[in-house]
Each structure stands twice: as C-alpha cells, then as structure tokens.
C-alpha cells in the first residue's frame, strides 16, 4: 500500500530529514512510526500526502508512483488518504456537521450525498448527537473524533494520523486510538505517527522507529524502544 524505496529528503538548508529510507506497508496494516521530535517522522508523513517531494528515491502509494506527481493529480491522491493532525484543523465558526460538509462541498459532492454520508461517519466516531455543536463546545477528544470523521468522508484506503493524541489526556488519547483500531478492522491501512510510549506499547502492532532520518528498527508486534 505504501512503499518507500531509498528515499532521502534534504531540505534547502542542507538539513537531512530522511536518509535512505526503505519501507513497505501492506494494505490493512496498522503501523506506528515512532521517534523523538525532529527525527523525520513528520517529513515521512508529508511525503505520503505529497506535501513534500523526495530529494532521492521513490514513493509509491497504492501502486501509484507519486515521486514526481503532477500538481493537478495531488487532489486525487489526497482523496485516498484521510489525514488526522494534532491540532485538529477544524473551522471554529462552523458546526460539526458544517465542518464535515465543507470538506465534501469543496470536492464537488452533491447536497444529497453530503446529507447521506455525514450521519454515517458521525456514527462511526460516535458523535451522532453532536452534529449541531460548534468545536468549542466539544472536548479535545471529541474534536479529534470530528477530524477523524472528516478524514473518512472519501472512504480512504489509508488513514494518516500525525500525533493525533498530542493534545489529549490519556483517557481521550486511548479513545482515539481505539477508534483508529476500529477503522483499521474495516480494512483501512492506518499509519500512526507518535512519540507516546504507552499507546505504542498497548497496541502491540508493527512499530517502526526512526532516528536521525533513518529507520533503526522495524518490528511486527513491537514496543517503543527509545
């Protein structure tokens, strides 16, 4: 599903963010990418959604070589990858329903389709009764669940979660992780970028550890080793 072949990313100021990374994530896998801040985790995530391009090597998503992806093809790619960020990125002046609807509107979905999909995704994340609430009326965990609901609207093959629990207390963090596991059981590939030991150790799924832009360990059913 996701394949990195000898990928290096060097930023213009000669900062090496990724150094010859080789990686293969199978469809339906749940993979945690761990490491301390500034070790290349977020760069790796950005390469997956074509927010950055590799300096060297190949990035292949679902059989599609996106190394030299064209500008107008990026939206097509991003509709296949649901993205969840630490800082939610919800619009404060829109309700939960409108926030999710906005994401569908800008992609040209019809009104009928919007009204059909939103209750479905809200049900998956357990917020059916919160659709008229504004983000500030929700807890951090609930807001993050709205974001996950939004990331599901295109029925993506991949969910990319970059520090989704970074702003949450441990109980809320656990709920979010359970939700991601639930989505994973439907067959969606989940890539979780985190530096939270407890979560990674609890999951007992594949763990890829990064250090100074390199993969230093890749374990099926692994633990946080740093």
């Amino acid at each position, binding site marked *: 599903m996701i394949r990195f072949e000898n990928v290096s990313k060097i930023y213009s100021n000669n900062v090496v963010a990724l150094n010859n990374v080789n990686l293969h994530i199978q469809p339906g896998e749940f993979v945690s990418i761990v490491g301390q801040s500034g070790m290349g985790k977020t760069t790796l995530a950005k390469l997956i959604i074509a927010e950055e391009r590799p300096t060297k090597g190949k990035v292949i998503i679902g059989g599609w070589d996106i190394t030299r992806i064209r500008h107008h093809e990026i*939206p097509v790619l991003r509709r296949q990858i649901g993205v969840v960020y630490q800082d939610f990125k919800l619009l404060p002046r829109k309700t939960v329903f409108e926030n999710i609807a906005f994401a569908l509107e*800008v*992609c*040209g979905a*019809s009104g009928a389709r919007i009204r059909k999909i939103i209750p479905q995704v809200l049900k998956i994340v357990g917020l059916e009764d919160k659709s008229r609430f504004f983000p500030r009326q929700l807890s951090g965990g609930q807001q993050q669940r709205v974001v996950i609901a*939004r990331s599901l609207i295109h029925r993506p093959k991949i969910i990319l979660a970059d520090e989704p629990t970074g702003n949450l207390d441990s109980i809320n963090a656990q709920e979010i992780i359970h939700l991601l596991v639930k989505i994973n059981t439907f067959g969606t590939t989940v890539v979780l970028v985190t530096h939270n030991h407890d979560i990674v150790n609890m999951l007992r799924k594949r763990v890829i550890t990064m250090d100074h832009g390199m993969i230093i360990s890749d374990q099926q059913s692994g633990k946080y080793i740093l």
Partner: protein
Amino acid sequence: MMIVTFFRATKFAFQNFWRNFWLSIVTIFILTLTLVSVSLLSAVNLLANQAITVVKEKVNIDVFFSSAAQAEQMLAVRAFVEQMPEAKQVEYVSATEALERFKKEHVADLDILASLAELEENPLPASLVIQAYELDQYQTIIDKLRASSFADILTTQDFDDNRSVIQRISILSQRVTQIGLVLSFIFATISLLMVFNTIRITIYTHREELNIMKLVGATNWFIRTPFFLEGILYAMIASIVTMAFLYPTFVFVSPYIQAFFQGYSFDFIQFLELHFWKIFALQIGLSLVLSVLSSMIAITRYLRV
C-alpha cells in the same frame, strides 16, 4: 457536478466579498476612479477631435475674379482647380449670387443695405470657394493658381487665421491627452495594487479554510476560482458604478457642449446612447483586465496549492 462546484465557488466569492466589506468597497472605489479618469480622458479626446473636424469644415479659401475676367475664363479656372488632387470641393459664386448672399447676411443692417442701393453697380466680384482635403494643402492650391496662366485675372488671399485656431485646439487636446494618460496610468497602478492587496488579505484570513480544502483533496481549480470570481465581481461593480456616475454627468454637461457645436451635426447625448453598450463593455473589459491580472498575481504568489 460542474454546476454545483461553480455555484459553490460563486458562493465563497460572495462570502469573501461581504466578510471584507469595507476593503471591498475601497477596492471598488479605486477601480471606479481609474475607469472615470479613463472615460473622461476619452470624452475630452472625442470632443477635441470633433471640434477640430468642425473647425476644419469651416475652413476654405475664396479666390476672387477680377472684373476683367470672362465667363469662359472663370469656368476654365474652375475646371483647373477641380482637377487638382488637393481640391475637395469647388463652388462657383457669381457676382449676382455673391450680392444676394451678402444682402441675406446683412438683412438687419439697414445702413449697409442703403449704401449698397447707392451704388450703381454690383461691387462684389465673382469668386471660387475652394475646400481642400487637408489644411496644409491650401497653400499648394494658392501657389498653383498663382503660377498658372490665370494669375492675372485672380485675386488670391493667403491662407487665413483658422489655421492658428486649429493649431491651438490640437495642442490643447494633446496636453489634455498627456495629462489624462498620466492620471489614468497612476490610477491603474493603484487599482492593480489595491486588488492585489485585497485578494492577498482574503487569502490570509482564509488560510485555515484553504489548508483544510487542500487536506481533503479539493482541486486547485476549486481553491482558486473564488478569488478569481471575487476579482471579477469588483470589476463588474466598478463598471456599473462608473456608468451610473458618468452618464448623468454627461447628460448634465451636454447642453454646454451642444452650445459649442451649435449648427453642426454632432449630438453628444445621442452619441453616448448610440455607443452606451460599447462604452460599458470597454469599461468592464478594462476593469476585468486590471482586477483579474492582479488577483492572478496574488493567487500565484500567496496561494500555494
């Protein structure tokens, strides 16, 4: 889907417009100033050209025949002038006709009529009234006549004072055009910067929404379109405001203009009405070029997708 998308892009454009209401108003105001100055410049140009044409039409020279000239000679002179490439129109005015015209022109002046009656003979000579195509051809015509074998039966005059009037109008209209061009250029530059800045600010205030749009896979086309539409909206409103301001203004000043062109076939209001849509289209065109150009620069500069 295309229609839905276009409809939504339009909705976003209107939202941007309303949410930055005062900024939008100032942008439209500056665009309007540009249009007004360009329109006034064109109007002044048009009127000056019209004035020059009118004065040119007034210009002609009279060539008088001496009393010794015979009828055949006069016709020969007329034929001679008519075959000159410079001559546009040649009119033969006989002595009797000249007298009739003179009497008509001075019908109210009893003294003159009385003194005419005193004279036994018609004091007015027969003449040719010659009109050339261009102003600078009059001297050529005169020179040719003077060099011809008819010189001794003709009294020619040098080309008259109308020339300096025309020159003055030309110079004035040139000055007005120059000043107008400079003003229009300044306003056009200001409007470019204004629209650019407005779109930039809109992009800045919407950066969160734009980020989310990108995140969920909105097409670049969809992200950019509302800003283009916003620019188009500014252009349309500015053109309408300009017309709403200029048309009544022109109607108001037209009696004064009419007075200047009295007796000539030029009706300013009729001209405006005849060309209303053309002028309107030109204004929309100009403001569209200005605002689309500057929103394009702002979008490519600040809207990385």
